[in-house]
């Protein structure tokens, strides 16, 4: 996890955004 800690704030935010977005698409798949 050291590489993640070294990332800039905006990079961490972008990674969180990608994960949340994909999770929402998976959620849409599960709920339908």
């Amino acid at each position, binding site marked *: 996890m050291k590489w993640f800690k070294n990332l800039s704030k905006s990079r961490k935010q972008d990674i969180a955004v990608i994960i949340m977005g994909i999770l929402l698409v998976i959620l*849409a798949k599960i709920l339908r």
Partner: protein
Amino acid sequence: MADSERKGLLQEITESIPGISLVIVVALSAYFIAPILQKYPLFKTYLELKDFILAILFGIFIKNTIGISKTFAPGLRFSTVLTKTGIVVMGAKYSMMGLVKVGGPALFYIAVFLFGTAIIMMWVGQKLNVPTPLAACLASGLSVCGVSATIAIAPAVKARNRDMAYSIAVVLMFGLLALLVFPPIGRILNLSDTQYGAFCGVGIVNSAQVLAAGFGYSDGAGLVAGIYNIGRVIFLPFVVLMLAIMAASRETSEGGQEIEINKWKMVVDKFPIFVLGFLGVVAFNTLGFLSKEEIKLAKTFMEWCFLLGFASIGLTTRLADLKAAGLSGFFMGFLVAGAKAAIALVVVLTFLE
């Protein structure tokens, strides 16, 4: 995880609850009031205020009239995260073929307008004697994408916080005006979804406002505006690099300190990697992993991400920031943004169907 870090995270979540609750209340108000307004001829015919636009307006109204206490501030920081998450989910609405079809011409128009606006802004800034850091912030904000582009260029041109706040305010104010003016223009000129989406994608620069204006017109226009928006965001590192080089050479020629720029590092650091998430979801959909019902539900998630993000943007927009700097910056910003929007309208009417 260390105990102190865990406590910090828990405290951060607790502190964010009031702000997040306020964002939800504003978003819900916009969601329920928008259909009621549509029953009145004024809003049905002339001033079409969809929930996305209302969420921003309600937020701005609350922030600049009643005011928002500091208790709410920690929960109002998620506008960018919510809007970007919505953009990733929006990928479920596109196929690779559709993306290439709209995205091809979009990239061309965006590149011309982006670099053109940035260069013209720097030139007008010099003519109006606007300080280089403020001119570069405005050029970046008004050509690429309001808030993030201004923040991206600021360290490279040694801009002050006031320059950044002012530039962001000009971008958001112009976008706010566009939110109210663009839909009636679209209706009067009978623009197609493709034309209107491209008009918004080029004429407005803040991601939230581009999407609000696009989806406020129609779903089709919103999706086209979304592609233009992503194209614009992809160009961010390159425009920032160009502006940093222009600002550095202007400073040096005026006898200022020489600024060193690591070009490759700047492009890599500023590249918006969340776009890869959007492309991943588009690929997922193109390969047939999503049914029609699943796409419909994903669209609902996308709309709520946007609605919450837009409410949050409104709740953090300070009209008073416009007073922070002289009139020349304001005049320059609105002049160039207005001219760009007018040219964009002529271009979409001439070259798009």
